[in-house]
């Protein structure tokens, strides 16, 4: 089907080569050389990925799966081998293109952003390692390969988030990200052990072709409980999903993601758009037929996704750190993708529109989210702060950035004809078709919230009077290397949704499903209209609050004197002030306070308690180590007695 397989090697070899060459040789000698080498190699990788995609989709072979190459990696038994290979199907090809493209753009951008950093060469090496790991994950033909690269993604994100290791906050953020995702990964590993032991295979093709009935009659002993193999598989599936749960930073394992903002902005950009967090969604999409075997697993996926979606959007409305707003918006968008996958199940049948919609949203989201982070990076680079308090009035100074930001924000808000509209519309439609009406309502609400907080950011950053000395003094300008990728990314942010619409519906089917499935035609034409109407209302609210001539930006940003409905009513503009009262005091103030309460006290509180408890236990072990020989000899005797009674020896 695809004539030239050799070119597909380049997709993986090029980032790896960049890593090795820049890491070992070039990085220390010449930062410029390292950057140029990284850009060229990533460009070649992108070109090969694009070539592969074009030849695949035009060959008539699509949407079938194929394994382009495969090497045996680790042999467990004659028929039970873990391979390393390249799986080709519409999903993986789409991801290959997206990852290489984003990596290419971020590399160009980093020339401007990292200029003058003392470890520029190392940065380019690590960035390529990151995209290489993600590419390996995407190309995985089996669970084992996926896990290896999954962890490699974790390691490289650890190295990149903590890139500025002289900042203590960066070090602790990188550690938190690594350990928290590792915690989730340990469940993933366990899921792999259980599933592969039951099925005797790691391959996705085998796993996705399973039916539970064959396993129902066999029994397996899980140590603490004896169940039939079908239930063991479902349990294994939930464990595997937990890996994606942590990697995609779904509630309550989301806390690492906003903290991961300590890394350089290009890293945030690539983490949020194409690598790392998308891995969790990709995992669920990849194993979709396997997860779809169990309705409860699907419901779990949907609930986790939907809750994160709303929760993160509410928090985003109250943040003032520009990167944190974007981080929470990523969480919210990932929530969309996740619940869309979970919402596919309707009773005993499965509708595949959710799968299509979710992968579609991965595709469009990558472009506009990457672009938004790069824009945020540009702003931070010029204004030297993450704080919206100190921005404002940047429209005139950074015109190209301004236009691109507008495009991306319209895209994420779901306003037609920008890309986000198409994919988000399909996701909302899935919730409706699956008869998950609560989630459907939440998705519409979140769509409004998204528009609100994104335009809040937009107006506060670009409109109004400048609030920062450097803007006032006119030091702000646009950097060529940083603006170029932003401008390029604006094109897919604008057009990718429209252009790819037919493509996704035609090619993107999740493979053969072993559960009854329904193909539903799009219905309910009123949904997009309502969604757009909500978005427009939210936009108007944001405008009134933050950008209209009468808006009180200082007041909107004021943290201290926010109480006092009483004062507000006596104020000149009753109408505005009632808006403030309702929106700020009730909606944002109330719900957001609740959301932040959960965040600060429950999630982080539990985490802090666990850490404290473990450290206390550690202290206990150390205190027992007194150096006193009598005590040590006593432990020998105690040990014998201990294992006599707890060793469960049958006497």
């Amino acid at each position, binding site marked *: 089907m695809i004539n030239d397989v050799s070119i597909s090697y380049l997709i993986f070899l090029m980032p790896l080569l960049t890593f090795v060459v820049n890491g070992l040789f070039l990085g220390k000698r010449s930062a410029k050389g390292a950057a140029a080498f990284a850009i060229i190699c990533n460009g070649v990788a992108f070109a090969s990925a694009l070539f592969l995609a074009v030849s695949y989709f035009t060959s008539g072979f699509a949407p079938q799966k194929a394994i382009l190459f495969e090497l045996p990696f680790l042999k*467990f038994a004659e028929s039970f081998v873990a391979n390393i290979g390249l799986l080709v199907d519409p999903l993986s090809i789409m991801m290959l293109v997206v990852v290489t493209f984003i990596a290419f753009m971020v590399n160009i951008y980093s020339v401007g952003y990292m200029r003058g950093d003392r470890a520029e060469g190392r940065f380019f090496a690590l960035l390529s390692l990151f995209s290489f790991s993600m590419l390996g994950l995407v190309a995985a033909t089996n669970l084992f390969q996926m896990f290896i690269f999954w962890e490699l993604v974790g390691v490289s994100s650890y190295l990149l988030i903590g890139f500025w290791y002289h900042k203590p906050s960066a070090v602790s953020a990188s550690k938190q990200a690594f350990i928290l995702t590792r915690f989730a990964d340990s469940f993933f590993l366990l899921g792999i052990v259980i599933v592969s032991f039951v099925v005797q295979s790691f391959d996705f093709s085998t796993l996705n072709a399973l039916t539970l009935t064959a396993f129902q009659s066999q029994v397996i002993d899980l140590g603490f409980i004896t169940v039939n193999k079908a239930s063991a598989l479902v349990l294994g599936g939930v464990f595997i999903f937990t890996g994606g749960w942590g990697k995609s930073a779904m509630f309550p394992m989301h806390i690492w993601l906003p903290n991961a903002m300590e890394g350089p902005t290009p890293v945030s950009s690539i983490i949020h758009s194409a690598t790392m967090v998308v891995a969790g969604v990709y995992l669920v999409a990849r194993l979709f037929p396997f997860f779809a075997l169990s309705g409860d697993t699907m419901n779990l996926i949907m609930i986790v996704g939907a809750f994160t979606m709303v929760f993160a959007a509410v928090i985003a409305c109250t943040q003032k750190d520009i990167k944190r707003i974007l981080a929470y918006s990523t969480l919210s968008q990932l929530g969309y993708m996740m619940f869309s996958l979970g919402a596919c199940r309707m009773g005993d049948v499965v509708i595949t529109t959710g799968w299509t919609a979710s992968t579609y949203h991965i595709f469009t989201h990558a472009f506009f989210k990457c672009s938004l982070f790069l824009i945020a990076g540009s702003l931070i680079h010029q204004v030297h702060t993450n704080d919206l308090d100190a921005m404002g009035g940047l429209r005139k100074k950074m015109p190209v950035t301004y236009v691109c930001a507008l495009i991306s924000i319209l895209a994420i808000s779901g306003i037609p004809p920008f890309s986000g509209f198409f994919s988000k519309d399909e996701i909302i439609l899935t919730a409706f078709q699956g008869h998950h009406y609560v989630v459907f309502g939440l998705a519409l609400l979140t769509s409004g919230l998204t528009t609100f907080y994104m335009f809040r950011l937009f107006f506060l950053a670009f409109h109004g009077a400048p609030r920062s000395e450097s803007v006032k003094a006119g030091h702000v300008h646009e950097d060529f290397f940083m603006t170029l990728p932003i401008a390029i990314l604006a094109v897919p942010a604008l057009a990718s949704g429209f252009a790819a619409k037919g493509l996704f519906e035609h090619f993107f089917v999740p493979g053969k499903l072993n559960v009854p499935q329904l193909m539903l035609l799009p219905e309910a034409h009123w949904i997009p209209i309502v969604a757009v109407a909500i978005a427009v209302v939210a936009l108007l609210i944001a405008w009134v609050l933050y950008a209209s001539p009468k808006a009180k930006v200082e007041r909107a940003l004021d943290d201290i004197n926010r109480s006092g409905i009483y004062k507000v009513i006596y104020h000149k503009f009753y109408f505005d002030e009632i808006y403030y009262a309702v929106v700020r005091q009730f909606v944002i103030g109330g719900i957001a306070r609740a959301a932040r309460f959960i965040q600060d006290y429950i999630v982080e509180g539990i985490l802090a308690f666990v850490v404290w408890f473990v450290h206390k236990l550690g202290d206990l072990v150390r205190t027992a180590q007194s150096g006193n020989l009598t005590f040590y000899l006593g432990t020998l005797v105690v040990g014998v007695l201990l294992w006599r009674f707890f060793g469960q020896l049958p006497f």
Partner: protein
Amino acid sequence: MSFSVPQFIIPDLILLALPFLVIGCRLVIRNSKLPWRLACIGLIAVFVLLNLLPLVGGSGNYFISNWRVDDFGILMREVLTLSALLGLLLAKDYFDHGADGKPQMNQIAEFAGTVAFATFGGYIVVSACDLLTFFLGLEMATIPMYILTAWNKKDQMGSEAATKYILMGSVATAFELFGFSYLYGFAGSIHFDAIQNAAAAGTSPLLWIAVLFLFCGIGFKLTLFPFYTWAPDVYEGAPSPVTALLAVTSKATAIAFLVVLVFGPLAPVQEQIAPLIAILAGVTLFVGNLGALKQSRLRRFMAYSSIAQAGYIMVALLGPAEMSKTAIIYYLFLYTVANYLAFFVFGVIGHRREESFDALRGLSKQNVSLAVALAVAMFSLAGIPPLAGFFGKFHLFFSGASTGHYALVVFAVLNNVLALYYYLQVIKSAWADEPEGELTTLRMTKRQKLCIFLLTVGVIFMGILPHLSDNIFAGFSL
């Protein structure tokens, strides 16, 4: 009557002769580097010869009916020899100059000889066919360790550690002998085959008392909870190369002892003693991990880390024989490599400084390659793919899971997160922490450079190309 020496016994004979040669040549030639070189060459020769031995499968070859060389034995011999060789290479610097604030050590020839004796003790353990030989091997592996711990006569800490070690060890030996005597009483024979038949025919409380005491006795050498208490003090007090030997050779011997026992005489009752193994494994790895959390001295930290590693290795003992042995051998190989890599790095740092976490500060700026090597070792010990440690742990857990001990595997996997935390502490010290005051210069000999390089490459390559060790996976049978 002609008497021919079979091929498979040659490495054993060389190793047995080696200490006599090494110590003997020092008697003849004074003050030369010859004994140490001879010891290294001898160990390399043994290692190469072992690798040339074909794996035969089945129950292995017998020599004079009482000395069995099977596949597990050959691979264990390779682990032990590798560990002894690396231990000698590591130790050389401690004889050339003082380190870790202690004076330099003397009498390298005797040191090398003692290490070889301990290694031969391990050989005996994996070759034994009866309880007497078995016990002899274990003692021969342990007594040299007492001596090695006190090798630095000018260091009081070392003497104190050795005293603790030998007192605790004697009690543990008594436990073992007690267990052996009951085992003999139960079966009426000291031969493994006879004991196995007796256990298959039926059990009695005698057998269970024997099992209890044997596990408690070996629990001392394998640092299982609560018999590990000597380990942090002894690891801390012993000279660094001896600590490395204790962590690898001593531990490998002890685990080989358990493997021989569980899959040999006790094979018929493996299922009944599985709960004991599981609880020992779980508690040990948890306590080891907890202990390692807040250490400030590197060797103490490595002690707790190795306690936890012992717990992980125990998990594999629950599996079916073949899978379990494969997992343990593979894990021991990469545990050896990663552990020695860490100790070599500590050795370089400890030349002019104390071996503590603070001494690692600023390492990434002073010597990046050393910091990278350290990070590789720590990531491998923490079990992060694609480094070797991950595949090793995967095998261990898979072996435990294959007989349905999921609860333990869950616990072990979660504990790995805890382990990641403290291994990252080491990396953080080396990479992120700013040094306090002026750093003393680091000096590396060519030998150290070469060893660190080879071991780093070893860890990486065993990880990204695990099928290189296919002879472990494929050629392995009972």
